């Protein structure tokens, strides 16, 4: 093996390789650097012993203290719930009106309600309560079953046409499918209903429809079509339609009504959660 070349300036050997005329100095590393490397290896082995480290065929090395990130998460969640207990106790003790008029409680309820809504309600009612075809808009000021806090809480708690014994129920007769009215009559009453919210319709149809309305619809929907909250009958004289406001959609709903279902949340989420999300829904934009 020949003597390696020494660089003239530094006195250090070169590695012996030359790439495109460029040589590399083989400067020795300081020994402390190697000892630090050994120390990190020892530290790593210690880490493997103390913490979960190596997977096996159907398990893994558990470490000495039973640490797991699941366990850490559960401990943090429990600590958070414990910290929130101050607030959730106050919410449990207060009535909805009391919560809504207390600045601190309403802020907590709003933030909690927002999270509860996003997880439980938004799939049907939309992220900001903007609704979807067949699912009511919660951000407006039109309410099928009442928009005050107590009514909202009852709706959430017991649901609509749900399996809960205290559920809210209403049933619109199947005027077309059960042959209570024939097609011409349905067409006329649909025209009359559309005229209630300002649409221009044929005068004859409107007059005939008015008579039919008084006989068949006013009992639930009100004389002027203003709706009745006790029956959950929508107001027909506004521009908000749950199943569509064009003529064909109104005719279809009279002919074979769709009846929406809302689950009952009692037992699925806790009582103070129901209160918080009631406050949140009330304050979305149209609470009464």
């Amino acid at each position, binding site marked *: 093996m020949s003597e390696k070349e020494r660089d003239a300036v530094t006195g250090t050997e070169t590695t012996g390789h030359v790439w495109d005329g460029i040589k590399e100095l083989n400067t*020795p590393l*300081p020994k402390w650097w190697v000892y630090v490397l050994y120390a990190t290896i020892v530290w790593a082995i210690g880490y493997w012993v103390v913490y979960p480290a190596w997977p096996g065929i159907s398990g893994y090395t558990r470490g000495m203290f039973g640490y797991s990130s699941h366990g850490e998460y559960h401990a943090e969640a429990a600590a958070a719930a414990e910290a929130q207990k101050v607030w959730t106790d106050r919410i449990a003790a207060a009535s909805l009106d009391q919560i809504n008029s207390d600045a601190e409680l309403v802020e907590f309820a709003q933030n909690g309600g927002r999270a509860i809504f996003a997880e439980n309600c938004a799939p049907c009612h939309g992220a900001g309560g*903007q609704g979807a075809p067949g699912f009511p*808009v919660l951000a*407006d*000021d039109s309410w099928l079953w009442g928009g005050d806090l107590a009514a909202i809480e009852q709706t959430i708690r017991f649901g609509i046409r749900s399996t809960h014994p205290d559920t809210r129920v209403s049933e619109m007769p199947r005027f077309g499918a059960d042959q209570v009215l024939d097609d011409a009559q349905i067409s006329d009453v649909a025209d009359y209903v559309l005229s209630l919210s300002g649409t221009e319709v044929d005068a004859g149809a409107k007059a005939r429809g008015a008579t039919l309305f008084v006989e068949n619809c006013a009992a639930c929907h009100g004389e002027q079509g203003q709706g009745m909250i006790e029956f959950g009958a929508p107001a027909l004289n*506004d*521009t908000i339609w749950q199943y569509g406001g064009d003529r064909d959609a109104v005719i279809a709903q009279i002919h074979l009504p769709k009846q929406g279902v809302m689950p009952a949340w009692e037992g699925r989420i806790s009582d103070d959660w129901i209160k918080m999300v009631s406050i949140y829904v009330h304050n979305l934009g149209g609470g009464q």
Partner: protein
Amino acid sequence: MAESRSLYAEQIKVYPQRIFGRFRFIKWVVLATLLSIYYLAPWLRWDRGPNAPDQALLIDMGGRRAYFFWIEIWPQEVYYLTGLLILGAIGLFLVTSVAGRVWCGFTCPQTVWTDLYMQVERWIEGDRNARIKLDKEPWSLRKLWLKVAKHVAWLAIAFATGGAWIMYFNDAPTVVREIFTGQASTAVYGFTALFAGTTYLLAGWAREQVCIYMCPWPRFQSAMFDEHSLLVTYAGWRGEPRAHAKRGEDFSNRGHCIDCGLCVRVCPTGIDIRDGQQLACIGCGLCVDACNSVMTKIGLPADLITYDSLSDQAALARGEQPVPRHIIRPRTLIYIGVFLAVAIGMAVSLAMRSTLDVTLLADRAPLFVKLANGDIQNGYSVKISNKLREPQEYQIRIEGIDGLSFKLVGHEGDIVRVAGDSVGTYRMLARAPKSAISERSTSIGVTIQNVESKEESRHDAIFSGPGR
């Protein structure tokens, strides 16, 4: 047959010798000034009123505020820190291009604390020859006593250093009392121990190994010099050929360097400056002091090793008079220009900070809601940052559409009250008759005005509608 060399090198311990001179004096002054600032600044007080910390320099992590005398920085203004760092970088580039590695040699924390630790070592164990002798001696009671005393002194300084660090993040008198009565938090003890440990290790044990192996700064310093930067230089044209000298030597036919080796013995990193500027030379100038002391003794002119620029030294080597161009050059002027631009920008921005900051966010889901009477409603989140110490009242107004009105959820009327030094969040529902909006997006203006001071903040927003 070549012998195999070890892949790893033993650390060669450096025993710098004590020297007196101009640069040693400057180093002591800089060290004393910087350490005084570091240890004493957290104790300065600044009265900010009853509910605020009274420490002049404080970074309050828990309260999300930074205090610098009369300036209070909120988290969303962290760009001031960026500005400071940029100023620091440009300042370093400027100073390096003018005066070489003065950062490394005089002001770097590693240099300052290592210098302090070496002086403590000198006080306890003696100067260079005494220390070398002590290390070679077998262990005795005296050696044990000296070594223990030195390490205890080092640890005490390290503890004070670590403690001072955390005093920038906590109220100084409180946290000092807590540390010594065992009441401080784990974080305080942990960080104090961490910084004490690293100070002790880096200044006591690692010393020049940090400069040579760990720090990136020496490795690109050479990119920041040019031929006009002042560097610690050995005037080889005058000093070579070197040789030992006798009393009364004639220096006319030989170099002035008498190879006394003092420049090597005083060097804190252990290099020989006569090999030229190198990575490990931190530019502290102690070799200048050393050589000058010898030159004076033997009656030769000073500055055989000196702070000088390469171009000036080359001129002197040719026998010409150098024309110094150290400070005013395109490079330095550009650095000064950028530095001033950033500094002035920061100062102006700080002076023009408002005490009222508003964020207005329109709801995106839903964009708009149709109400029972046909009106269109939009929801907005209004966040009002009150940067004054006292609670303030603000009036909210909106305009831009005929018949536009609004209500605040949970509030009666249009005046809100925000607590001092905090952010108030409000939900605003604006409604307009459908007939007044014809586009999908209509511009509206929202104005928030401080009722008392009349300071106002105006924001443009979009009112969404169904369009035609």
